[in-house]
């Protein structure tokens, strides 16, 4: 950090545009991944890169760094013989690069996920899928968080706090299609306070308070189990699939880092 300060001042004095500096420290550089994150999360296991098994879609220019929509698409069917059993989402240059991991099952139907994340700077975002045969596949995208004057926190955290723990499911239509993957959205109201901001100005920063675990089941069978961290936007919002074999109950159980738990359920009719 400190080594960066003198060159900046020097540039300012000589009037060379900052873009020179940006080029000097290439934002597309993958050093954070190759140097540390890869080994930290996956050791020396081989990872196949490409979009054949999993594909990550993210906007190149993030309009709002507090709400960057990310989509992950599974390219293989979730069958009992072979399926994507875990997807890990890493945002290289965030203060906490680990954003979330999602455990899926054949009952998930499709390994498609969508969510909103916080992106602090210019960074690669990567999704790593682990298939049921233990192989790893990675898809990545580069995101420039610009977002004008906003910051990657959330616009109205007090409103989220006031609704803390409220949850709801949203499905297309009121009836499920049996035996097929059905799309569902889970909305959780939680400020997801990062607690990370260095308090250089006042003593007002609230300690970290964020959703740590999300478990969704259908009639007791796990559909999606997620471990989540502070990169998930305030009011966490997940889209995913599940395959109902009969009418039943979709249930979500949330736990945050302070140990608070919240549950919600929805009756699914056929």
């Amino acid at each position, binding site marked *: 950090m400190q080594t960066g300060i003198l060159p900046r001042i020097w540039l300012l004095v000589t009037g060379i545009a900052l873009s020179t500096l940006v080029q000097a420290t290439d934002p597309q550089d993958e050093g954070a991944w190759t140097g540390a994150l890869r080994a930290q999360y996956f050791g020396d296991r081989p990872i196949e890169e490409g979009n054949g098994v999993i594909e990550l879609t993210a906007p190149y220019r993030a309009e*709002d760094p507090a709400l960057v929509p990310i989509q992950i698409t599974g390219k293989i069917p979730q069958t009992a013989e072979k399926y994507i059993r875990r997807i890990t989402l890493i945002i290289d240059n965030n203060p906490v690069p680990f954003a979330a991991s999602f455990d899926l099952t054949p009952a998930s139907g499709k390994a498609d996920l969508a969510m909103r994340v916080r992106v602090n*700077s210019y960074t690669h975002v990567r999704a790593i899928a682990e298939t049921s045969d233990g192989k790893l596949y990675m898809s990545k995208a580069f995101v420039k968080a610009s977002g004008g004057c*906003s910051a990657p926190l959330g*616009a109205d955290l007090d409103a989220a706090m006031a609704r803390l723990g409220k949850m709801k499911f949203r499905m297309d239509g009121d009836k499920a299609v049996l035996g097929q993957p059905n799309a569902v959205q889970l909305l959780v109201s939680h400020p997801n306070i990062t607690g990370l901001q260095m308090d250089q100005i*006042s003593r007002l*920063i609230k300690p970290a308070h964020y959703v740590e675990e999300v478990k969704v089941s259908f009639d007791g069978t796990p559909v999606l189990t997620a471990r989540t961290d502070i990169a998930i936007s305030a009011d966490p919002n997940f889209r995913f699939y599940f395959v109902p074999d009969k009418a039943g109950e979709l249930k979500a159980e949330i736990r945050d880092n302070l140990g608070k738990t919240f549950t919600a359920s929805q009756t699914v009719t056929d």
Partner: protein
Amino acid sequence: MPPRFIRTVGWALCGLWWGLAAAQSDLELREIAPGIFVHQGRHELPDTHNRGEIANIGFIVGERCVAVIDSGGSPEQGRALKAAIAVHTPLPVCYVINTHVHPDHIYGNRAFKAPGVSFIGHHKLAQAMALRAPYYIDKAARDLGYTLTAEDFVPPDQPVEESMELDLGNRTLRLTAHGPAHTDNDLSVYDAKTATLWAADLLFMGHLPVVDGSLTGWLKEIDRLKAVPARLAIPGHGPAVADWPQAAAAEERYLNGLATEVRAAIRQHRTMEQAMETVGTSMRDEWRLFDEFNKRNVSTAFAALEWEDD
């Protein structure tokens, strides 16, 4: 390298820079009503060329002292504003009013920090500064081309809970702390003497309004502001002055349109990503910087309005 050394070097060089800036550019100011001076910003994204100096800023002069309203978009602009005040009046600055946390309105704060100067802001401003400072400091280095430190953010020593009156000597300013609107820490200033409302970023004209607080909250606060008996208003982005309340019509139309279309998208089970592509686009021609800010407005509104039906 010890931090103290870096700071000393930084200061020395900033001093040099300031010398150059002061020699060539007096901050252009317009006296829009007796004793109210406004520097008009420009409709641009903050970058290394404009150095973030894009907002309308200025000051109000009483018989005893001066209140600065928004200190500038860079430490240099803060110093230029300070120098310009001295050209217009021998009276001292007694208040620096920060209308909200955005960089283009507060980065000049440090120039005014002195004994006898009180910093005034919304009761949520200090928290917003603390939350955003680390990100803003990185962003200034990357996008604006200068180094900021924590000292450039001067939090208010007098927080405004609901409202507050400041006496500048035979001139009383009435400050109102608003609910979440443009940001969650918006403050407006009313000068009864000239019936002028310094709306700051609660009022955008020309430049697309930016929702970094609450869309529905902003519409409520506009209603509240329309009840203020002002004849003139000073927008945070737009002309130096405009007639009140007509000045708010375009902004209100855009925000209402945004709310209507986002609600419809949510009802139709469209995703945020889909809504960002279409919502608001019929209003594109009425605004500058539409492409830069409309999508983010849609996403902020979408995430909030998803909770509306309960």
